[in-house]
């Protein structure tokens, strides 16, 4: 912004302070029109709408954890569930495993993302990779993990390619690669998948800073690209990807679908263990599951706090490096290697898993050590595909309705919410909408279940869609906020001085200019919805099966051909949505950005 400091930023409420001692026109007297009114009060209303279910959900997990099971009769307050939880022999190893995989995956994902962006920044290769990042990111975890499991297993695709002629393995080696008890496979998969998300967020954050300029200045002073980026750009962009990093941390600590497919079974990490307890029909087991769910909320919040402390410590440690004057060093070479290697591995693993799924879906018998199926058949697609229309239909209906609703809501939110967030009320509202990203799904879905049951809508499409919306909305908002705020506020001001009201300015000027970011945000919402497993299982109670629930059910072992088919469709749907979004004319948006 050049001269715009004093101008109303986008979405600023139309309100001025009356001069001291001279009360004049009251806000109420202003002819805002009902559209202005709706826009103005939307954020507060919507925040309440989102906060309600989350609060009830958390309460629903907290109460049974203290012996109060509203559905099962009068409350008998006790700490028995906690004794049961902490006393469970599986608890300590599960906690260790959870902390190791959660922190490890987040740390690795952040390192890969930072290393890759720093090393590849401004290269033409990166420009090309950027284009593919979003669609690759859209591949749901369930199918990614299933494909990866088959690629990397001792009897998997890679081993078969080289067996027995090169390896001498007549039977697959007894190696613990997938489902290893330390959770390394789970950690690696989480790190690779989440690094793509963080790279996307880093690129978006760079757009808000003068990254290229700062980097060029550093390079003219003799700093290497990598070190220059680390010293000048990273400190600017990290605060903006902090929230996504916390979201990755919370998600990695409590991942379910990935843990079921790639994680160890005995002991399992906390989240799948909680689910297992919940599935065990016994009141004590139920209460223990509730305590575990609530515990994971505390764990996620503590972990985020700890991460913040680590951030501060690292910053303090790194500060002397800023001014020590070293132009190039060894550390960044290692980080660059990790980043580029990690990104390459993530892209290769995604492509490989998609390919594997495609191959399985048309395979006949395919036994060790054949690298390719003995026979190919479309039997799976013709015979067992009868459920596919229902699954794909549910998935599509959920993804479309929630991504459209979330995008509309995000637009109204950004229109109504002050731009820079000085007011504390705004900060609170922000915290509320982003809460579903930071709170483990498992800890509020239990309670949400009771809400849907009370409303007599559990097991309906409505309950599933509302549950999805809680999680889809913050992602859409996360993606849309940056381009929305990057739009020069003077463009909207110009439209309004030309006589256009807020709604007309929004519809005729801002939304067309933001068409591409809007489409991408909707597509991200679409892919988030298609990949949601736990909310679908809980709110749907099995009555609203989607491709993802089916994929997870099939991926944990079972029928690889059915898993391949479902996983393939699941991969293709959000991929198409994102391609469609990227195909949107981007000229207006680019032009608007270059002005800003």
């Amino acid at each position: 912004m050049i001269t715009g400091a004093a101008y109303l930023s986008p979405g600023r409420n139309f309100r001025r302070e009356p001069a001291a001692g001279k009360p004049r026109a009251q806000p109420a007297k202003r002819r805002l029109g009902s559209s202005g009114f709706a826009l103005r009060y939307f954020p507060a209303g919507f925040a309440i709408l989102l906060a309600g279910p989350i609060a009830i959900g958390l309460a629903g997990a907290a109460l049974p954890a203290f012996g109060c099971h509203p559905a099962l009769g009068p409350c008998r307050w006790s700490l028995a569930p906690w004794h049961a939880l902490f006393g469970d022999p599986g608890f300590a190893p599960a906690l260790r495993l959870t902390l190791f995989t959660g922190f490890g995956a987040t740390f690795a994902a952040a390192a890969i993302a930072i290393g890759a962006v720093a090393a590849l920044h401004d290269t033409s290769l990166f420009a090309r990779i950027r284009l593919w990042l979003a669609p690759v990111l859209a591949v749901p975890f369930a199918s990614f993990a299933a494909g990866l499991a088959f690629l990397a297993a001792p009897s998997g695709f890679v081993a078969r390619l080289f067996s027995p002629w090169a390896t001498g393995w007549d039977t697959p080696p007894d190696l613990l690669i997938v489902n290893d008890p330390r959770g390394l496979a789970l950690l690696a998969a989480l790190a690779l998948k989440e690094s793509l998300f963080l790279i996307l967020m880093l690129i978006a954050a760079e757009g808000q800073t003068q990254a290229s300029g700062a980097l060029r200045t550093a390079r003219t002073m003799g700093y290497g690209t990598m070190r220059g980026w680390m010293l000048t750009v990273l400190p600017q962009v990290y605060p903006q990807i902090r929230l996504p990093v916390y979201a990755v941390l919370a998600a990695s600590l409590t991942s379910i679908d990935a843990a079921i497919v790639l994680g160890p079974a005995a002991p399992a990490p906390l989240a799948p263990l909680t689910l297992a307890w919940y599935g065990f029909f016994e009141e004590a087991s139920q209460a223990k599951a509730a305590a575990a769910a609530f515990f994971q909320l505390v764990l996620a919040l503590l972990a985020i706090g700890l991460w913040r402390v680590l951030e501060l410590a690292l910053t303090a440690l790194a500060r002397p490096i800023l001014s020590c004057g070293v132009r190039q060093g060894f550390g960044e070479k290692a980080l660059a290697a990790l980043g580029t290697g990690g990104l390459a591995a993530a892209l290769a693993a995604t492509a490989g898993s998609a390919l594997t799924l495609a191959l399985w879906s048309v395979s006949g018998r395919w036994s060790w050590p054949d690298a390719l199926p003995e026979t190919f058949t479309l039997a799976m697609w013709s015979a067992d595909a009868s459920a596919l229309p229902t699954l794909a239909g549910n998935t599509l209906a959920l993804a479309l309705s929630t991504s459209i609703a979330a995008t509309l809501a995000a637009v109204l939110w950004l229109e109504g919410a002050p731009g820079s967030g000085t007011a504390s009320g705004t900060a609170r509202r922000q915290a509320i909408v982003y809460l579903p990203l930071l709170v483990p799904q498992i800890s509020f879905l239990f309670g949400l279940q009771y809400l849907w049951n009370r409303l007599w809508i559990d097991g309906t499409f409505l309950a599933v869609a509302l549950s999805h919306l809680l999680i889809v909305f913050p992602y859409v908002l996360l993606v849309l906020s940056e381009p929305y705020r990057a739009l020069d506020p003077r463009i909207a001001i110009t439209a309004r001085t030309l006589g256009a009201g807020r709604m007309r300015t929004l519809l005729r000027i801002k939304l067309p200019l933001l068409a591409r970011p809007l489409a991408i945000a909707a597509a991200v919402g679409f892919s988030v919805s298609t990949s949601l497993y736990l909310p679908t299982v809980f709110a749907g109670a099995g009555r609203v099966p989607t491709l993802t629930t089916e994929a997870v059910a099939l991926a944990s072992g079972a029928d690889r051909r059915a898993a391949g088919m479902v996983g393939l469709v699941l991969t293709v749907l959000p991929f198409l949505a994102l391609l469609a979004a990227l195909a949107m004319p981007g000229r207006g948006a680019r032009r608007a950005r270059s002005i800003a």
Partner: protein
Amino acid sequence: MKAGLTLSNVTIAIGTRHLAGPLSVHVRPGETLSLMGPSGSGKSSLIAHVSGVLDPAFTAGGSIMLDGAVLDGVPVERRRIGVLFQDDLLFAHMTVAENLAFAVPRAVNRHERWQRVQAALHEAELPGIAARRPETLSGGQRARVALMRALLAEPRALLLDEPFARLDMALRERIRAFTFATIASRGIPALLVTHDRKDVPGRLMEIGGEELV
């Protein structure tokens, strides 16, 4: 009723820090009053305040009157005050004609609307660019389209926030002349914020200081 734009005792502050004013001045119809002052003296804030889009972080005092009517509390789109910025801010997703037509008051029918757009292009000596996208125009063409667009909204006053600063010297001269001539011929009051004394067409006011001439 007093025609023109009147500021009485207008002050701008951010938090407890005083920025500009108290400022009292009357701009006659057809007159362009220039404002000068060092960076951070509140010139742009004043423009924002008059057009009705001052950021809530700022506080403003005093009152503004346009053609005898108090403007305080009137939403920006109903003030009918045009603003031109350093950048032309043409809407990139619309053609030149659509940009211009966007500004024509809504009550005007379709046929009349087109006639006004054509007339504006003619007046600005911009034939044959109606269907073009803004990014295909030259800097001078864009500046003139932006001015014509502001005028098609039938503003009762015009605020110019360093609109010539980005133009090169040769172009600047022509656009400046064209702008001031158009303002004079329409008989609307205008406030011009500038850093360049060559921009000043008539009365000049130093922000925070005395009226000079």
